[in-house]
């Protein structure tokens, strides 16, 4: 039979089924809703058949793992070779507190570290800055100087662990602090590995922790990427993040499209700065969210790999297959957690983690059940890690590569995601790129609209959230113990900073900061100058302020 004959045969078979089997059933037992949609409110059909994937060619579109277009995964053996890295995001209080938590997590079998910084640190402010009041050590660890970083990694050999650091606007400074700690430990920069998030575009779009305007921010990012290719070759100098875009209310497709378009923007800037695409692209990494809608999320991950591979090969002409690979970290969706009946969050997180694994993630953070209320306690953090360990060792989903390939539904959804992505790329390209799109508020408005539509669907009970708009309890059956960070953290930090400023060589601090400003005004790579400031124990705030003098500050345009 030719393909055409086969298609028409199937179409006939489907019509027959609809007529003879489906219709009488629907007459007797109507479906529960007129339309079924995903968490992102994407309509889903009743049934998927080979007709939905007839545009796909196995070798061209699905293919083999470890080969272009990587739909099935970036490694030929996936989790049979190596499990994903279980990397739990942690950080609170002082560097002393978080150092203790890190050691605990490593003892529990965690494979890599992931640092959460507090808001002042994320904004490039020292703990003793007036705007830091009430925020020190609250949603992450407070790091104001090299001294804090030394405490944070005390007793943790940096050549042996990999560390991910969620830091963006001041990423170059925090990275420099990490490198100097490594240097002091005698670790070889050529051997250390980890990731800095260093993704400012999604800050403008979603998370909103920016310092400088787009152009100098992009320059700092290009500087770190260029520096890493030379000096820290195993480091991932950027983690292009959809996580926060999703948390801000984006749909799965918007998360995917905006994140990959951000990736394109970074590659364009690096290439324009004179870097060879194959020199840095293999070190780019991504970070996605994983929400509740199981198959939509899996399709998103598979589409991410396929779209990125094509972008890198066709749009940028990358030739090294490693440049085509979309390697990514996943975190389960914080915004899916409920304050009501918080124990239910363990179940939500398990479903999400399973989708991330079936989607082929390289590393994973599972949220703790209490995160709609506060930072996780030691117990809930362990339970979240155990969730991953159970999936890895007991569920059996790791035994084969990309087990959902060939599913009519999953492949059709993957194709839809892919198409939707290219449509967004076209729109954003037509606007003049992602920075131009951000300046006119395009991704921001799309996300706000989606967030509102979703909340309305929940309010109208078109989407049921267990314990929130259905199965509600008047009184919580179990009280969740809470990790509480008090103001003593801020006091300790202020005192440490006071002593540091009195003890260090302030003339040297001044000299290194002046040299950095000079470099920032020119076109030299700023990283070596930032390293000198850090070695002299200039604080995070002092270094960021020096750059503010040269670069100015970002103001969000009204829209």
């Amino acid at each position, binding site marked *: 039979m030719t393909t055409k004959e086969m298609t028409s045969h199937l179409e006939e078979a489907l019509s027959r089924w609809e007529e003879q089997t489906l219709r009488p059933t629907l007459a007797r037992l109507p479906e529960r809703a007129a339309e079924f949609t995903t968490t992102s409110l994407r309509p889903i059909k009743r049934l998927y058949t080979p007709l939905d994937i007839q545009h796909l060619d196995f070798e061209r579109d699905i293919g083999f793992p470890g080969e272009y277009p990587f739909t099935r995964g970036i490694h030929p053996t996936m989790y049979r070779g190596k499990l994903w890295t279980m990397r739990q995001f942690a950080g609170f209080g002082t560097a002393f507190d978080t150092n203790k938590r890190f050691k605990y997590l490593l003892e529990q079998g965690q494979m890599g570290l992931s640092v959460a910084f507090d808001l002042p640190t994320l904004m490039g402010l020292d703990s003793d800055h007036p*705007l830091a009041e*009430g*925020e020190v050590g609250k949603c992450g660890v407070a790091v104001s100087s090299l001294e804090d970083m030394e405490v944070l990694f005390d007793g943790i050999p940096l050549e042996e662990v990999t560390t991910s650091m969620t830091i963006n606007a001041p990423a170059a400074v925090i990275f420099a602090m990490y490198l100097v700690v490594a240097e002091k430990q005698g670790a070889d920069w050529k051997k250390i590995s980890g990731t800095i998030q260093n993704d400012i575009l999604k800050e403008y779009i979603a998370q909103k922790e920016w310092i400088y305007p787009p152009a100098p921010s992009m320059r700092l990012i290009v500087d770190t990427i260029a520096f890493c290719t030379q000096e820290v070759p195993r480091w991932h100098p950027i983690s292009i993040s959809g996580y926060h875009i999703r948390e801000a209310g984006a749909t799965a497709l918007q998360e995917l499209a905006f994140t990959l378009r951000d990736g394109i923007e970074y590659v364009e800037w690096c290439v324009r700065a004179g870097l060879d695409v194959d020199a840095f692209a293999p070190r780019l990494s991504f970070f996605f969210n994983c929400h509740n809608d199981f198959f939509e999320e899996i399709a998103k991950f598979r589409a991410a790999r396929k779209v990125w591979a094509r972008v890198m090969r066709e749009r940028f002409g990358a030739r090294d297959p490693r440049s085509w690979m979309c390697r990514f970290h996943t975190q389960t969706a914080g915004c899916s957690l409920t304050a009501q009946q918080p124990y239910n969050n363990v179940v939500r997180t398990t479903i999400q983690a399973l989708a991330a694994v079936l989607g082929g993630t390289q590393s994973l953070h599972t949220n703790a059940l209490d995160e709609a209320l506060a930072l996780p306690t030691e117990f809930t953090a362990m339970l979240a890690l155990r969730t991953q360990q159970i999936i890895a060792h007991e569920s059996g989903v790791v035994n084969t590569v990309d087990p959902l390939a060939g599913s009519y539904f999953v492949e059709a959804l993957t194709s839809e995601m892919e198409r939707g992505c290219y449509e967004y790329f076209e729109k954003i390209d037509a606007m003049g790129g992602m920075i131009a799109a951000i300046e006119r508020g395009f991704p921001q408005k799309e996300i706000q609209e989606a967030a509102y539509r979703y909340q309305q669907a929940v309010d109208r009970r078109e989407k049921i959230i267990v314990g929130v708009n259905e199965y509600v309890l008047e009184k919580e059956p179990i009280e969740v113990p809470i990790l509480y960070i008090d103001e003593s953290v801020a006091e300790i930090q202020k005192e440490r900073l006071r002593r540091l400023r009195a003890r260090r060589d302030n003339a040297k601090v001044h000299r290194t900061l002046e040299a950095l400003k000079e470099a920032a005004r020119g076109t030299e790579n700023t990283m070596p100058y930032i390293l000198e400031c850090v070695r002299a124990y200039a604080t995070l705030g002092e270094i960021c302020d020096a750059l503010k003098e040269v670069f100015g500050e970002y103001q969000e345009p009204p829209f």
Partner: protein
Amino acid sequence: MGERKIRVLIAKPGLDGHDRGAKVVARALRDAGMEVIYTGLRQTPEQIVTAALQEDVDVIGLSILSGAHMTLVPRVMQLLQEKGLQDVVVFVGGIIPQEDIPKLKALGVAEVFLPGTLLEQIVNVVRQSVKRSLETSE
């Protein structure tokens, strides 16, 4: 008085940039017929109270997800007292541990909304509180 639209200031105090909740709530209150002013990110308690005074609002909604609520909310409440704005109804929304809720209410916060609160509930509680506040002040 009954015809006057309820005026609401939605504010983001502190360094927290998570504005999804603030924006969704602002829109829901607007769709429910209220006048809503959104301050934008990273406002100090002083800026928020000044805006409340200038805009002559009935309600302030403070959105905080960073854990700094026990520092920021008392400052706002104190400044409202000082400016003679104690009739303004204050709501807090965000990541707030259970044990802080009675403390915030003791400061005069009318209600604390946690993740998962339905918009309809927020709209209703805001309407009722403003009604109560007007009745007691008349």
